[in-house]
């Protein structure tokens, strides 16, 4: 499964609703979660809102919040 947001190809199903009425997927790289019933603009990598897409580079360059403090010795 390809993540609609960052297009990582190891996204996978984590859960399903009663009678499999929907399924929830997660991306282990960008942590995006989505439900199969949300509509193509949320589930399709080609149709996901470009303003909210994430690239590997963007993820690599993200600042930590809060910053990690130095270890106390």
């Amino acid at each position, binding site marked *: 499964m390809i993540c609609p947001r960052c297009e990582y190809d190891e996204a996978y199903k984590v*859960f399903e609703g009663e009678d499999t009425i929907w399924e929830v997927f*997660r991306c282990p790289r960008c942590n*995006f*979660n989505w439900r199969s019933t949300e509509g193509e603009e949320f589930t399709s990598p080609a149709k996901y809102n470009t303003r*909210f897409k*994430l690239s590997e580079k963007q*993820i690599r360059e*993200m600042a930590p*919040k*809060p910053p990690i403090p130095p270890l106390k010795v």
Partner: protein
Amino acid sequence: MPYRSLRDFIARLETEGQAVRIKETVRPEPDIRAAACAAARMPAGPALLFERIEGYGDKQVAMNVHGSPQNHALMLDLPKDTGMKAQFHELVRRFDCYPVHPVKVSDAPLKEVIVDNKPSLYRELPLFRVNPWDGGFYLSKACVISRDPETGENQNVGIYRLQVKDHDRIGIQAAAHHDIAVHLRKAEELNIPLRVAIAVSNDPVTSLIASTPLRYLEDEYAMMGAIRGEPTEVIPSERGNLDVPAGAELVIEGEIIPRMRFVEGPFAEFTGYYSTCMIQAEIKVDVITRRRGPIIFENLYSGVPWTEIDYLQALNTCVAPFKQMKADFPEIEALNATYCHGYCSIISTRMRFGGFAKTLALRYLSTPHGITYPKFIIVVDDDIDPFDLQQVMWAIAVRFRAERDLVVIPNAPGSTVDPAHLVRGITTKVIIDATKPVFPDIPLADASIVDIPPETVIWAEEIMKRRKVSI
């Protein structure tokens, strides 16, 4: 009577016509967000209880529980038509009853079911995406409890945005100015996990105080008691040494993984804008305790104001800076910091002498809340209700003289989530002094205000009576 749980409060809201049950099956997306947005935007918006959510069995969702002045008044056990200014003064009065310490109980419904073998957030909660471009399913109204890991003291209860990322993983936003960030920093300096408990679906005062900017050493549970008028009940967590609200529906326990950050967000914030994606701390969940079903999952819709957050994080935001200012300047009458967490704020005051409005505005900017959040401050006289914008705009219209009463302070500290920033965390502060000039300032040329006829109050009642008959 103080409410012991969310269920108690929903029952009261229902008797007052301030809660609506949705019995039909709704979709997790987009139905819940759309209905919650609608409820918050209508006058006297009710709480919503969704009884059937597609795919989630008998699990229920509650939204907009604090989402109107009426619900806020009922939370405080005041008549539901109590105005905002009166609610503000009542809240100030009750803050002065602090501390009313919590009592520990040994049993509560939230201990009926204990899931400590592979707990799954997806299985236990009817999760849904709050806003379309949120990075996942958020717990937007849950209370996070933690302690200083060095001393085991200074227990804190706060509402932070929580993103469910996996069965047992939750992203947490611990911004540097949040109390939990102090606990996290100490734990990370020692490279040890920080134990946390997350209480979901609480009595309304618990959520109110968890979202109130108290001082670091102030005890949220003792403040809840002060607001409730009787001690709040807490029960020990399963692991670690935390007190959790005994009235909660469900408690998630776990630990923040030290010195690691993971992709989190975006999330639609109180500003009505999405925040950016960042790498943030993450909680590893190890036990969930809950009521036997059906569970009610309370969550919060945030979007373009007015939404529930503008009622929940509103009067409580005003009280702390008001009290800090009042200690120095007893002339201050009220503070309305309800617009985007105080980005726009209105101070009403009596005037000690000419120019005094500027003194008060600058004092506000030096309170802990005032340092960053406020960027547009209006000061009005005590004949103006700062919670009534018609009156405030009248004061600006007739009392404000731009050449003397406009103050601009560039390059000042600002909120980091203000979408209008040029440099994140830096803003320009504006003070609008809309008070009547008093000695030794030059008085207004036309200083005679038209009296409101004293019989107006009587007539207003009469007119309302006749109106009710005709309806």
